[in-house]
């Protein structure tokens, strides 16, 4: 087993596409809710080889993209406080705030360190006892367990110069919330493979049963995505709405209980704002009271003026699948990866960045 090449077999892909063509009688819109799917679909040119009647749209699957402008402005403000070191995953550095990005802020003297793992942020706090290290805590269920463990470690060591800016989010509540928008039309979900590794299959059940939307958890290779599309079309054809797991080599039905336990030891759900979707009940995570001394918002007094997004930027609509990047008047003209205006062009997992980077690609 080579784990990758088998799932990129072009001859099988052609046969699956034939099966998909046989099923694609009616127009339908399938949404993927994972930045890695967004990139894989663009990279392998899957959109271009599917029948015209099947529309693949991206949902709120990129953690950087769904972070609100006011959160970005607020943690940049915290970074400007004397003695603070901001630690962040690399994707967040280029995202524009209302006035500046972290990259610009760095040029103005803010100390921004890019980390690969939250434990590196804890290590920074250990190494710099006279500085206050604030980790920009973004990410979905896949990323949060590691952050929770880092916080538990900091608590164990009584590190009092380590903080997080809490902005972690949960995917299933956002999937439900976007279905209530009038401009959103989704016939089925390609559910996120990595998030599902943690949460398992059960959290999607209400989306299938209460909202009547077929759900298929999918892997990230071309054959995975094509099989998931086929499985969704079969459900649609037979009037079914259930949760299926295409990515069984990784996702167990029960998910990863140890990782979930870590999340809920440290965090509890709260209602938070998402870019493009607004306030969603129980879709975010805040620190439980026994860990709230790590909350940067309770330790640093920052006031940010009301935020503004570029009036023509379509990231909000793109994040709920009501528009695709090419619908945006700024796409590939005023807004490019070198000079991004909205977060979907900045993040390596953003829909606009994916469309821009792989404009000419088609599965072969």
């Amino acid at each position, binding site marked *: *087993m080579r*784990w990758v090449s*088998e*799932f990129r077999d072009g001859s*099988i892909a052609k*046969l*699956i596409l034939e*099966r998909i063509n046989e099923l694609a009688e009616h127009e339908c819109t399938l949404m993927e809710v994972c930045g890695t799917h967004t990139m894989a679909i663009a990279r392998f040119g899957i959109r271009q080889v599917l029948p015209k009647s099947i529309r693949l749209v991206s949902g709120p699957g990129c953690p950087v993209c769904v972070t609100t402008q006011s959160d970005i402005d607020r943690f940049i403000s915290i970074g400007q406080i004397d003695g603070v070191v901001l630690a962040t*995953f690399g994707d967040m550095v280029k995202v524009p705030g209302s006035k500046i990005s972290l990259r610009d802020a760095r040029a103005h003297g803010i100390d921004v360190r890019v980390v*690969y*793992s*939250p*434990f*590196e942020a804890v290590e920074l706090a250990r190494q710099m006892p006279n500085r206050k290290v604030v980790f920009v805590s973004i*990410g979905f269920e*896949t*990323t949060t*367990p*590691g952050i929770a*463990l880092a916080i538990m470690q900091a608590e164990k060591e009584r590190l009092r110069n380590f903080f997080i800016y809490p902005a972690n989010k949960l995917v299933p509540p956002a999937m439900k919330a976007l279905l209530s928008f009038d401009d959103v039309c989704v016939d089925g979900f390609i559910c996120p493979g*990595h998030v599902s*590794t*943690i949460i398992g*299959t*059960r959290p999607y*059940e209400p989306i299938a049963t209460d909202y009547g939307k077929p759900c298929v958890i999918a892997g990230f290779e071309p*054959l*995975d995505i094509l*099989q998931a599309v*086929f*499985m969704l079309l*079969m459900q649609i054809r037979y009037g079914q709405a*259930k*949760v*299926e*797991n*295409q990515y*069984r*080599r*990784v*996702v*167990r*039905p029960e998910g*990863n209980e*140890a*990782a979930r336990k*870590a999340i809920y030891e440290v965090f509890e759900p709260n209602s938070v704002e998402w870019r493009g979707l607004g306030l969603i009940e129980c879709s975010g995570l805040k620190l439980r009271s026994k860990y709230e001394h790590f909350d940067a918002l309770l330790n640093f007094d920052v006031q940010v003026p009301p935020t503004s997004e570029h009036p023509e930027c379509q990231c909000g609509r793109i994040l709920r699948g009501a528009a695709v990047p090419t619908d945006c008047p700024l796409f590939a003209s005023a807004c490019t990866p070198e000079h991004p205006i909205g977060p979907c062009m900045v993040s390596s997992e953003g829909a606009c960045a994916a469309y821009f980077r792989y404009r000419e690609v088609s599965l072969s």
Partner: protein
Amino acid sequence: MKVINIEGVEAEVEQGGTRLRVRADFVEDVNVGDYVLVHAGFVIQKLDENEALETLRLLEMLGMGVQSTPVAEG
């Protein structure tokens, strides 16, 4: 990524010549030689070879026109 070394909850993983030090707190019984999924410095699951082979078998059947899909799971 393939596990090439493990000491307690710390593992060294390798893919395409790139080696990373990661933590394996969330997955029990990680051994040298296992293939694992890694995210932001953590092993989050072991890959299951039997399930991978089963998915490939289903894909081949599907390609041949045998319309069989995995059973829904709760």
